[in-house]
Every structure is written in C-alpha cells, then in structure tokens.
C-alpha cells in the first residue's frame, strides 16, 4: 500500500509491516486524545521510521493516491488537532 508522510513524499509499504505500524498508530491516537506531547512525538517518530524502514520510495512521477497519509515530522499535537479538529472528529 502507498503511505504518504506529509512534507516527505510517498512510500510503498509491504502489507506485512502493517500490523506493527497499526500498533504504533494506536499509541499515536492515544497520545492525541490524552494530550501527551512527548508520547505523541515518540509515536510519530516511530511511525515515520517504521514507514521509511519498511517502505521504498513511490515513483515520483506517478499520480497515484495514497492509502494512508501521515502528519509531517515535527508536527505538534495542536497542529494535528487543528487539521482534524476543523471537522470536529477529534474528541476532547
């Protein structure tokens, strides 16, 4: 599947890496909800590292849509909330 890290580009990630990435993603979601900035930064970095390690760069001249889009590295909880929050999808 194709994963985009915002600000960085698209990666082709093998499906067998998904379980691990999904578990990190759960940590990320928990951190956003609890507002734990340190846990959020750690989870986001782990998620990015996991995608980069398991994936290969997707052809830059393709016009394919990504299956999954991740916040940019260095993003804060507030920035992510702001992106999500406009549509009222984030609780709390």
């Amino acid at each position, binding site marked *: 599947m194709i994963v985009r890290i915002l*600000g960085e580009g698209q990666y082709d990630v093998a499906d067998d890496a998904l379980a691990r990435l999904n578990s990190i993603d759960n940590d*990320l979601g928990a951190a956003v909800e609890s507002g734990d900035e340190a846990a959020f930064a750690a989870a986001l970095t782990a*998620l990015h590292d996991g995608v980069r390690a398991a994936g290969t760069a997707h052809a*830059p001249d393709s*016009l394919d849509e990504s299956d999954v*889009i*991740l916040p940019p590295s260095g993003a804060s909880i507030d920035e992510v909330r702001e992106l999500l929050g406009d549509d009222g999808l984030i609780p709390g």
Partner: protein
Amino acid sequence: MSMWQRFSLIFRSKANKALDKAEDPRETLDYSYQRQLDLLAKVRRGVADVATSRKRVELQVNQLSAQSDKLQGQAEQAIKVGREDLAREALTRKSGLTQQIVDLKAQQAQLQGEEEKLTLAQQRLSAKVEAFRTRKETIKATYTAAEAQSKIGEAMSGIGEEMGDVGMAIQRAEDKTAQMQARAGAIDELIASGALDDASSLNRGDDISRELEAMSSQSDVESELARLKSASHGGAIEGSSAAGALGAGTSGQPMQAGAEETPVQQPEEGRA
C-alpha cells in the same frame, strides 16, 4: 477508526475540496494544470525566501564570530601587558556573544533543513506536474467529455494530494521563516545600533581597545626613544643632530600626545 485513517480521510477531503470543477471535465484539466504551475512557482519563491533568510543568519553568525575572535585577541593582548581586569572584561563580553552565536547556528541549521525539504517538495511536485501534463493531453486527445470523467478523477486525486501536501509544506516553512526573520531583524538592529559594536567594537575603538592602544603607544614611544638613543651613541653623528634627538626625547610630552592620536587610527586601517 484508526488515527491515520482519520487523518488521511480529512486531508484528502480537504485536498479535493480545493479542486474546482469546470463544466466540461476536460477544462478542469487545464484549469488544474494552471494551478499546479502557479503552485510550483510559489514553491520556487518559497525556496528562494528560505535561502535568503538562511544567508542572512549566516552573515550574522560570521559578524558575531569575527567580533568574538577580536575580543579573544584583546583578552590575550591584555594578559600580555598584565591587565587582567581588561582581559576579564573582554572575555565576559565574548561569552555574551557566544550564546547568541549558538542560537543563530541552531536557526541556521533549521532553515537549512526547511530549504532542503522545500527543494525536495519542489522536485516531487515538478515530476507530478509533468506527469499530469502528459496524462491531460492523452485524456483530451483520446476521450470525449463524457468518457473523460473517470480518467480525470484518477489524475486529479493524485495531484490534489500532492498539491495539498506541498501547500502545507510551504505554509510551515513560511511560518518558521517569519519567526526567524523577526529574531534576525532584532539582531540586525542591535548590530546597526552599535550596541553589539560597543561591546566589542574594535573598529571604532571601544574602551578596552583604547586602553590597550594607549598602553601600546606608550611602549612604542619608549622603544622609539631607545632606538634613537642607541643610534645617537653609534658615533659619526653631528653634535647638533644628536642634541635634536635628545631634545625630542626630553621634551617627551608633546610628542607623546601626538603619538597617542596616531595609533588610534593606525590599527583601524590595519584591521579593516
């Protein structure tokens, strides 16, 4: 729904919302392509803006480093002539500059990072815009307006996502650059106002350099005197000229006063 799925859905819906639809779907292609070119131009300007900010910070680092080096030199000179108080003053001022230099270098590294990110974003967008252009021409040549619909949808969503991503990257870079420009502006003002210059300003002669120069001009006078004296003892000199040299030596006051003014300007030329 997982965190990243939510994030993806929202990001995508925003990116798609930003794409306007024309009556003939094939016109949408041209319109979108025009917007892609506009965005590409914006990214290029963004890269240039960040580079300008980075160069400005680099220049400031160089200016402050040069001042710091000069203060170090002053401290060494002061120690040589046994003025620990002056050396301490010079080193204190230097340590103030050191912190600023560290901060500026961190900013410089951050701007460098932004510049690299934007440059890569520009390359990615550029590759996709070119791919879009090719696809657009194929679609327009091959399909009727009715048929084109789904093909256009495919091409548009991919480029829309990239445009959303790049748009966000520019926004982030602009925000960071704006913060740093405010700080860089403050430092430029400090340098221009002479506040930093006064602390270290060797060009115009601050109090530390004035004292050091006064001391060195004093010793210049002494050594010049010594040289003249030894020359006069060297023999074959007429009594009158020897007396003249001695006269200059004994009436030391006016000569010293003159000598004190010249060295203040001499080092300025030497250092510039």
